């Protein structure tokens, strides 16, 4: 059991926690946080596993950098969408409006603008 493997296992644990949150949480921002947690876990695995040769390997580090950029971009997009969504519907979960008890009468659930 090297230190690197320890990192890797920590990464796996982070992933697990993130996944749990991602699935269980309804609040969109929390979901997003869970995703980021999971992402960190994966990066940790990537860096941790690859170091087992002994020598520091530059490749995973470069990859993780790229990965972080991607994750940031995705997070940004998600935040924008969630904000806009909240703005339009007043909701912070993905539940269908029709299934929520008070919001609107159920009959309107399927009537969406005439164009599409």
């Amino acid at each position, binding site marked *: 059991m090297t230190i690197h493997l320890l990192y890797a296992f920590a990464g796996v644990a982070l992933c697990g926690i993130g996944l749990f949150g991602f699935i269980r949480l309804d609040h969109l921002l929390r*979901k997003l946080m869970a995703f980021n947690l999971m992402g960190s876990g*994966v990066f940790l695995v*990537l860096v941790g*596993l*690859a170091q087992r040769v002994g020598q520091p390997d530059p490749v995973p580090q*470069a990859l993780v950098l790229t990965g972080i950029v*991607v994750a940031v971009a995705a997070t940004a997009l998600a935040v924008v969408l969630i904000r806009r969504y909240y703005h339009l519907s007043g909701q912070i979960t993905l539940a269908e409006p029709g299934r929520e008890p008070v919001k609107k009468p159920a009959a309107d659930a399927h009537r969406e603008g*005439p164009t*599409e």
Partner: protein
Amino acid sequence: MTLWLMAGLLFTPLAWAVLTLLVDFRKGRVVTWLGILVQVLVSLALWAAVASDGGFYYFLGGWQAPLGIELRVDGLAVTFVLLTALVAAACGWHASVYLDPGKSWHRYFWPLFWFLWAGLNVVWLGGDLFNLYVGLELISLAAVGLVALGGQAAALRAAIRYLMAALLGSLAYLLGVALIYGQFGTLSLADVTALLSDGTVAAGQTFPLVLMLFGLALKTALFPMHGWLPPAHGIAKSPVSALLSALVVKASFYIAARLWLDLGGHLGGYELAQLIGVLGGLAVIWGSWLAFRQTKLKQVVAYSSVAQIGYLFLLFPLTWGVTDAISLQAQQGITLQVISHALAKAAMFLAAGNLIMSVGSNRVDALAGVSRFLPFSLFSFGLAGVSLMGLPPTGGFAAKWLLLQASLASGQWWWLGVLLAGGLLSAAYVFRVYQASFIDNTDTDHFFHPPKSLEVIPLILALLSLGLGLVAEPVLSVMALPFEGSSR
């Protein structure tokens, strides 16, 4: 020459994207028309180059893996590049007429469109696992943005749901990549394969492969992980739906297929292959059934995508543990299915958009009497439907034929049922739409007539998918081209 072509494929779309980001919708439209022309020409040129000289590996900027970007340019890849150029050009053209320039947020369509195109090309040509990941993410983010372009709360809900699924899938894939790298120390698919076949590194557990396949299947909306697809495809603007169904889901499938064909033999197993096949089969049946039950036109088409994607996953059982000939047959069949579904589904979504535009409602039963007024869009819809049903002479039929042959030859006769029943079920939902349009006793007597160019585009796509079956042999022969010299 090759340098220019490769740069043209990967970087110019990004350039168009940046360019259109800076201007408004109408100017962006002009830029896009120019860009489409360039991209189509470049794609054709690359296709011609590969068709005459064979495939090759290309290292961008001369950098070798692992840090450089390795591109694998073979017959299959260029075919998909060309397909992308074709479908994207059609959708772009259609969108330039279809989208309302008056809505300010529509200007973002163009950059997203170009990012998507760039991402797709990256995936088709990418030779190492991490680049594929980047391409995939690029596609996902652009696609989510396009879905959100609809503007209403429902569109955003669908977009967010889509985004969440895509992100989860990406992470699963990335984790798999990490594990693979940890085991093999390389990201190049070709190197991993070489290591496996040399026996230098012992074939490890199936887990990384399963993880990657899970992520990709989620992004491809394989049953039972298809929940995000119909809302997203159904709610998006028609050209967007067309792009998503025709190309985006194919990108993740393409990666899965490459992984399976290269690694599946060593890392996969019979049970895994059959499991994926069964899920695909269930997707065919269940997706078709749901498509039959939908009341909204675009939902019908969207669920039909779920079903058609199911066919693709028959690749897994039909290529595992069989002779090369059968495997080749199955691969060819799946490739044809990808192409014909891309063309047909794009045509179908675009035609459905036209139909909805002209009757002013998105319900199937609102189509009553439309056959009298909109023969062209309806005709395109019908022709595309024929391809989905897998009736001759369409590409869908050619694909089905090859898959039937592969199933028979490999002794896995149970897939016959899926193939035949799937065809009949798709006939059920396609004919439901037809039938509605043939009803004659209707009160509605005035329909809005869409511009002619909107009608022509789906017709062209539909005719292409129809004619694909007739030219399947030459198309397949390009795909099967060997690499130029076997060494890299």
